[in-house]
């Protein structure tokens, strides 16, 4: 029976067998070896590109599919317990000699509050973000409480903390830039060709 016919019979994608669901997503995917049914999730260190699939139930055809993302290999030092105040800011003036910058911050926690202009020293910024401080740079600033993750895996006591993180926005693509250059050339030619003095 074709997948489409089965879909009509089941009336929902969720009811379809696993192979049929997969074929809808990736029609050219060839079926590999059967997944060994198991109730225990097998975990292994893997690259972020790999995803492990566990079939819950007695066979791959029984229905539900659970997807496990690999554990992050990054060692986390602390975790936010509660963020009580957040701002989004943009740098309007950076003074590298004085090691401080001026920014306008917008209250994300209470949007009706007015914008504020603040002067922040470079020492308050993470070392890894210092190179990102420049006119026009955008950052997030959170204040709240966090807990250290101890070596045993347990959480330490709650402490107040702030964190300023600059956004790393990807550069424009070459294609987009080429398109902009083309559009701007055409617009400029029209403006200069038609301008009246």
């Amino acid at each position, binding site marked *: 029976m074709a997948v489409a016919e089965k879909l009509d019979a089941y009336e929902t994608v969720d009811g379809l067998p696993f192979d049929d669901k997969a074929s809808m997503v990736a029609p050219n995917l060839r079926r590999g070896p059967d997944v060994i049914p198991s109730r225990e999730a097998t975990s292994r260190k893997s690259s972020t590109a790999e995803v492990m699939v566990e079939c819950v139930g007695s066979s791959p055809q029984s229905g539900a599919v659970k997807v496990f993302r690999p554990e992050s290999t990054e060692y986390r030092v602390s975790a936010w317990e509660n963020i009580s105040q957040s701002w989004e800011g943009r740098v309007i003036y950076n003074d590298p000699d004085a090691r401080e910058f001026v920014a306008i911050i917008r209250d994300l926690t209470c949007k009706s509050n*007015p914008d504020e202009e603040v002067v922040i020293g470079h020492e308050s910024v993470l070392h890894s973000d210092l190179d990102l401080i420049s*006119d*026009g740079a955008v950052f997030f600033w959170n204040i709240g409480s966090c807990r250290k993750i101890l070596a045993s895996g347990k959480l330490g006591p709650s402490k107040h903390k702030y964190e300023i993180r600059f956004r790393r926005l990807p*550069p424009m693509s070459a294609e987009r830039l080429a398109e902009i*250059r083309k*559009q701007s050339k055409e617009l*400029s030619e029209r*403006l200069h060709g038609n301008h009246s*003095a």
Partner: protein
Amino acid sequence: MIVDSCTAAQSRTPVALDYLESIGVGVESVKVVVITHFHDDHIRGMSAIIERCVNARICISGALTEQESIAFAMAHSLNDAFSDLAKPSTHELANVLRMIDTDGGKRSYTLVSEDKVLHRSGTSIVHALSPSDRALVQSKLKFDSLVSDSAVAFRKLANKLSPNLCAVALHICNGKDTILLGSDLEVSGTPYLGWEAVLASVSKPNTKAALFKIPHHGSANGHSDDVVATMLGVKPVSIITTMNTHALPKPSDLDRVKGFSSSVFLTTEPLVRPPARSRAVEEQLKMVVKRRRVIPNYIGHIRVRMLNGVVNVELNDNAKEAA
């Protein structure tokens, strides 16, 4: 005539339109709109003005209509992944250019450069003193470099060109009274750019101003002794728009301006208390912030009316005369 535009911090309505409405002048009466340059505090709300003032000729600095500056505006107004706080200047500029283009020549516009007459009515003439030809070329190179940077560096909001040598300074004369509007034009250190190019021009008008809008918020890099000596009348009235980000004008700047003026008027800002936050947040704030001020939702107004040399100045609560 409307020269540049600004809005109160949390308002979208241009102050100029509010003012015209308050004095009973219809927007259809506006004959000229001048865009001197694209800094936030000079262009915010301009597209709304152009949309409403349908009979006005749009006079835009020639430095903003070259391919490179248009590409710069487009590259910094993508309206995609990240939120641009308060829609900075490049968004307005891109909108203005599209509005002029969309009308396909129905809107009259002038690409402004030095020594162009922007408007003439009876004995009244509005004369552009800048940007110079070389400033236009220089700005093209700078904008092109900034656009290229967009493709290799982490994206951020638009940078301003510094120094500002492409702003449009205006000389306005009605046959008896003369005003000099300095915009944000700066001195360059060379004879072909900035105020030096204005002074070197042999075709600029020669009447001297009794009212002077001080360039670049009173900063030292906007001041020229030669401009004061040759383009201003004796002891003119001077107006300064403050720029708190850079603490302009500095006390020394104010003293300098007071030295050649009969009186100096400044826009000021009222002290606004910041909103109350939890103690824990305030403690963390104090640890991080060296100085802090709330951006108020008020604009300082200085209204000057001049006739036959007699000057009448009115201030709102957010403007003052320098002591």
